[in-house]
């Protein structure tokens, strides 16, 4: 099934997306000095980049997409903090080698929430698009 996507506001969305992405880079760079690890900051930046560049051009209200992006960042931030706290606790009892294990697995653990959230967001956007379509028809 071919879907026609709107041509309007493409350029406006592009500038907006670039602005939001630049904002997230600055935010996570600052946060990485004290609140989150560098690896987590990188993963969150990659998530933002993919989400803005590939989900923003899809059909659907911009507000919904921004809310989803915000929600994704909150989930990512919490996910990374929870795992970091778990890692600190484990290092205290199990020794420094656990920290290396955590560093090795950290990108993979991050990808679990990124892919899951990505799939759910797409499904959510597609469902709302379909509902809109059925009303229009």
């Amino acid at each position, binding site marked *: 099934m*071919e879907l026609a996507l709107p041509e309007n506001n493409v350029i406006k969305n592009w500038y907006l997306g670039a602005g939001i992405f630049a904002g997230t880079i600055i935010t996570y760079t600052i946060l990485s000095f004290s609140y989150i690890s560098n690896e987590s900051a990188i*993963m969150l930046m990659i998530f933002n980049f993919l989400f803005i560049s590939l989900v923003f051009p899809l059909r659907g209200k911009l507000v919904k997409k921004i809310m989803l992006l915000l929600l994704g960042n909150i989930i990512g931030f919490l996910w990374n903090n929870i795992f970091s706290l778990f890692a600190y606790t484990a290092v205290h009892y199990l020794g420094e080698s656990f920290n290396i294990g955590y560093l090795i697995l950290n*990108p993979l653990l991050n990808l679990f929430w990124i*892919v899951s959230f990505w799939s759910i967001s797409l*499904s959510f956007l597609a469902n709302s698009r379909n509902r809109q379509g059925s009303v229009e028809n």
Partner: protein
Amino acid sequence: MTAEILEILFIILTALIMAYLIRHFTFTLTVLNHAYKRKKIAPTKNTVFQPTISILIPARNEERVIGRILQRMTELTYPRNKMQVIVIDDGSTDSTGKITEEYAEAYTCIKVIHRKQWEGGQGKASALNTGMKLAKGEIIFCFDADYYPQRDIIERLAKEFADPKVGAVQGRVTVLNEPLNLVTRLVALERTGGYRVDQQARDRLGLVTQFGGTVGGLRRDLLESLGGWDESILAEDTDLTFRVYLAGYKIRYVNDAECYEEAVESWRDYWKQRHRWAEGHMKCAFKHSFKFLKSSSLGLKEKIDGLLLLNVYFMPILVLFSWIIGVPLFFLRSSQWFRILWASIPFSLYSFVGNFAPFFEVGIGTYLDGRNRAQWLIPLLIFTFLYNILICTKAFVDLLVSKITGKNNNHWERTVHSGNGNSYIWN
């Protein structure tokens, strides 16, 4: 010293993985951009260019599905006087031959070639070469026995041959038995990413579009000049793709020309099929990589894309290798740059063999197809990727062993079709 060597090796591997990721990100963006411009499917009613065609259908013990495709052949909207259907009964021991004979008696456009049991089972390329001898059409199309095309598929595909530079054309494959189980659902996701995004983007960008060996056609004169299908290679479709490009022709992909296939239904069958693909594809990489680089008829972007495509089945092995050498580097030399590169590797994990499509590519493909529920299964693609690491490693080892020992391990592991897809067809 060891750490330095490992680090250099790790950087090279990560650079390769990144090259594939960037390639597929570009594909996804291209298809999204294309979706903005594309408003409707072109009608086929008034298609003027209608060359004579021959459709080859190789079949070996396909009694559960052969009747379905032959029935469909009789329902195609392409002019009957310009169409010839040739079924190659490849030494079947079941009732495939009997079913095909019944159709040949009822419809004059259907012809059957019966190969004796000692002749059959030598692979699809061998059966197709036999069928080609009887073919009279200007264009030769191929369909597998378990396929089920849309009625006007030939019009949609054949019109591309109006351009003399087009040597072959490829249609879209979708999964018929998708709701059956998890394997068929994951295969359907792979197909969506592979065709809806990957093939379409390559076609749009003027890169190397792949001829899939089925749901596609080639010019007969070109095929004859190339010497037909290479029977010594398991991935005869990939081999033909590169020979077509090396001969100076292009391959077009037509997303609107859809055909259903019956996907493998168990992990065991998945292994057999992908092992065959992987081994054949790797053999093609050895055969064509250098020739492709040297070719004067190809542009730089075609050469780069062709090389990436040829070597795609090595990537799961290289991902595994990068993980193996990356872990000791954490102990030996854990620099900031190394950690950044390390973070990029998992992104290639959520990809599947053959197209090496990352999760975002599959996601956009399903979105554009309007398949909302299928998107929930994307995280599970990690299992197919991990499985494919084993498959590709085994295929590579087998290929190396056959190279060293000089024994041509070219055994064709046929995919068994259950005919379960019949229940999903509504006439």
